[in-house]
Every structure is written in structure tokens, then in C-alpha cells.
């Protein structure tokens, strides 16, 4: 019997997907369905904003940035 589930389809890099999977391991409160390819998954609509903020913060911390010095 087919079912329909409400959610938000997320399309992203494999690396970002791995991070989202890691978030979900903590309390299983993000993912509705892991779609088993490395670029897509469905998450809860209520968590979208939260996820974006958390991702933005973590990526800022983790990504190596070239020298940002403002010197001329």
C-alpha cells in the first residue's frame, strides 16, 4: 500500500549529506527518509531552518579558508 509522507527534499553534496546524517544520529530528529544515493534525503519540514543555521555555523568553523587578512 503506497504512502505519502510530508517533508523537505534536500539536495546537497555528499559531504554535506554526511554531516546531516551525523546530526541525525544524535536524536533522530532530522531525517524522514534517507534516500540512499549520496546527494538526496528527506527531512522534517520543521527542522529546515534549524538545519540551515547549524550547517552554516559548522561549515564556517570547519572549512579551511585562504588568508582573509584585509591588508592591502
Amino acid at each position: 500500500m503506497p504512502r505519502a509522507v510530508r517533508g523537505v527534499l534536500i539536495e546537497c553534496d555528499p559531504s554535506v549529506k554526511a554531516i546531516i546524517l551525523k546530526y541525525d544520529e544524535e536524536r533522530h530528529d532530522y531525517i524522514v527518509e534517507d534516500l540512499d544515493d549520496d546527494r538526496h534525503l528527506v527531512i522534517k519540514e520543521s527542522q529546515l531552518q534549524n538545519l540551515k543555521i547549524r550547517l552554516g555555523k559548522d561549515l564556517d568553523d570547519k572549512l579551511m579558508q585562504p588568508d582573509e587578512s584585509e591588508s592591502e
Partner: protein
Amino acid sequence: MAAAPSRPFDFLEGLPGTVFYKLYQQPSTALAIFRRMLPDLAKCFVMALLYLKEPLPATDLEDWVRSESLRERDNALSILGRLHILSNTTTSNNVRAYMVTNPFAASLRQALMGTEQTQSFGVLSQLGDETAVTIPNLDEYAGRQWEGVLGYMVGTSGLGIQRDVNLSKGVKQLLQAGHLVEIRDRRVEITKDGFAFVLQDVGTQVWHILILYVESAEHIGMDSVEVLSFIFLLSSLELGKSYQKKDLTSTQIRTLTDLTDFGIVYQENPEATRFYPTRLATTLTSDSSALSNSISGSLMGTDTSTEAGSGFIIVETNYRIYAYTSSPLQISLIALFSTLKYRFPNLITGKITRQSIRRAVEMGITADQIISYISTHAHPQMRKHNIAKTTNPQAGVPPSVLPPTVVDQIRLWQLERDRVKATAGFLFKDFVSFAEYEAPCRYAEDIGVLTWKSDRKRMFFVTRHEQVAAFLRSRK
């Protein structure tokens, strides 16, 4: 074709037919729409049909256009139809035919031949010319007022330089009503739409404001059609001439006063007996692009009468940006997306950095807006340099005024902010067999709601579920 600005066109298109009927009563409106809103082919059609007494059979008209230009023809016909200029009728022997609709045809003929004595194109003031305001003065006034409006939006007062431009309450309310600014804690904060607005060229901005004005006219007890047709009237006036006010209706007088605040028209004081249109008004419905250049030039605060059309921004491949300007408005616009370093009397320097772009993107400015702003205002030296490069026959890429590395990097920095693409919708799953899965999936694709599918897992994701669910039920 006259690159019809999409916003006024979209706005007009959304008006009901009765409004067009009223608008087209005025020859000035008919002429303005003819000049500004129509592609060249559509103008040809109108001119060819204008003086015909009988409707022209559709096949005859369609024969005028070569078969390889069918798209242009259909586009022209569709625009004419949407603006209620051309109507489909039949000839006496029931052949499908086109004709120019009547208030428009009559008004355009009047506008072209000048056989009428109405005040559709304004009445020149008969007052002596000793006190006349000169064109440079009008340009300066228009530039100052318009800069005042933009400056109010981006908050130039933060830079410690306050120009004494008096903005009336009406102007501020209009900006708020149009969601271009918000008032928070009695401080003016610019919105996303506002950012998009300030980075546009002046012509588009003026139309944007005027449409907001027309839309809000009903709320303050004015007839929006009358206001709109008055705006078209203003656009057909001549720069540097003054016009009588005594023939205007009370609505028109009121509009005049409000538009004075924006610098679109000039009058010495609200009780003056005559008014002058400024360049902001007279170029509204013409193809002239001199407007944006000369006004933005005057916004730079330099002498532009000799050097109209020059930009002032230089961007180097190492992301450094130099802007020859002393205008607080331009400085605060550039500061939106770059880190400013030094300020000299006529020059500021800064650097476009990852952080500055991210800051801009977080405020809701898009990379494309930034790029188009910089290229619109690029210094002539940058254009010259670029032309020299593109005469190189190997250059197959479209010319870009800016260094490609900078353009690409700005886009990449924006993408960095958007690591995930989210689409809200519904996941369909748990199909028993592939056959059961395939039919609704294909149906979803056909109606254009499918965003993702996996044949292997027998799942698919749609943006709307109602139709797909109905489809599934119908197959039970």
C-alpha cells in the same frame, strides 16, 4: 526592440480592460504606450493597421512576416493583445481578422496628427522666461531629490554626512508601503526588496516608485487611472519647458506635489502656477538611456554635463575596488558588498572579500545584483580595456567588463552560502510492485510536480500531492 522594462509592462498587463479603455482616451497615454511598451514589430503592425477602415484578415497580416520569424510575430501579436491594442474580429465575410481597438486608434491618430485641442500633452506656461529654470538646474534638482530618497533607504546618515534633502512623510510612507524599507525601533531598515531596488538603474527605480504610487493612490482617495494617465502625460512633456497648472484637476495637482518630492517634477513651491518636468519624467517612456547615466553621474557629485555616461568603479583582478566618487549614497552602496579601506576626497578604495560578499548575501543581495551594479558603473577605462581584449578573434566568450575571475568568485562565494537546496513536498513510498510505482510516477512527471525519483527504491518526491493521490485512488 525597445527593451520594454518588464515591471511597468507586467503592471499594465494586470489591469482590467475597462482601465485600458479609460487610459486610451488620452492621446498622450496612447503615444507613450506605443513608444515605450511595444517591440518594433508590434509598432509596425499598429502603424500598418492604424488607418485602415476595415479589419485586416489575419492571414494577410501573418503573410508579412517570414516563416523563420514566427516567434517574433507571435510575441508581438500577444503583447498587442495583452495591452488591448489589437483585437480579433471577423471581416464582413467571416474571415478572422485584426484591427486596432478604438479608443487607442483614435487617440494615437490624434497624437500623431495633432488635430485636437485638449490638454493631453500639457499646456506650455506663457510666463516670461526671465525666471525660467535651466536644464542643468533641473537635473541637479532631480539628482539631489532622487539621491535623497535612495540615501534615506540605505541610511547614508550613518556615514556622518547628511545632505539636507527634505523627504516628505508621503515619500517615506510610500517606501514603507512598498516594503522597500521597514521601520524598526524608529530606525529605518532596508529590506531585501529595497536592496534589489537601490542597485537597479534609475529608470527602473522610477517606474517601480511610480507603480507603487499608482497602487497606493486608491487608498488616499485618488483615482488610480487618472494618476496613471497623468504620469504618461508627464512622460511626454519636454525637458526645460514649463507647463501651466491651472488646467489640471485636483487629483493631478496632488500627484504633482507628491512627485515633486521625488524629483520627478519641479515647482518652486506648491502654490506656483507652473511646473517643470525633470529628466526623470521625460525619459520615462522614451528609449533614451541618457537618464540613468546623467542622473547617476550627478549622483556622483562630479561635473557630468561634459562627461555623461561615465562610470566610476574600477575592479582589479586581485579583488581591489576603486571608486571615483564622493557621493555618500554610492559609498554606502559599495560598502554593502565590499570592505572599504581608504577614503580620499574623490576616491574610495576597498576590497571585495569573501566576508563582504557573504555579509551582502546574508542581507539578501544576490551575486547577480552586485555584478550588474559594478558593471553598470564600471569606469570607462575598464570598458576600453575590455574592448581591446574582445577584438581578439579568439575571444568567443561574451564580453564582460569585469575581470572574469572576480565575477566567478563572487558567484562562488554566494553558492557557498547555499550548500543545500531544499524543496518542500511529499515523498511517496511503499509501492508493492514496480508497475504500481511507475504509473503515478510518470503521471507526476507529466503534470510537472516530480522533483526526484528512484526506480530502485520505488520512491518519488513531488511538490504537490493532491493530484497524484487522486490518481492513485482512481486506479484502485
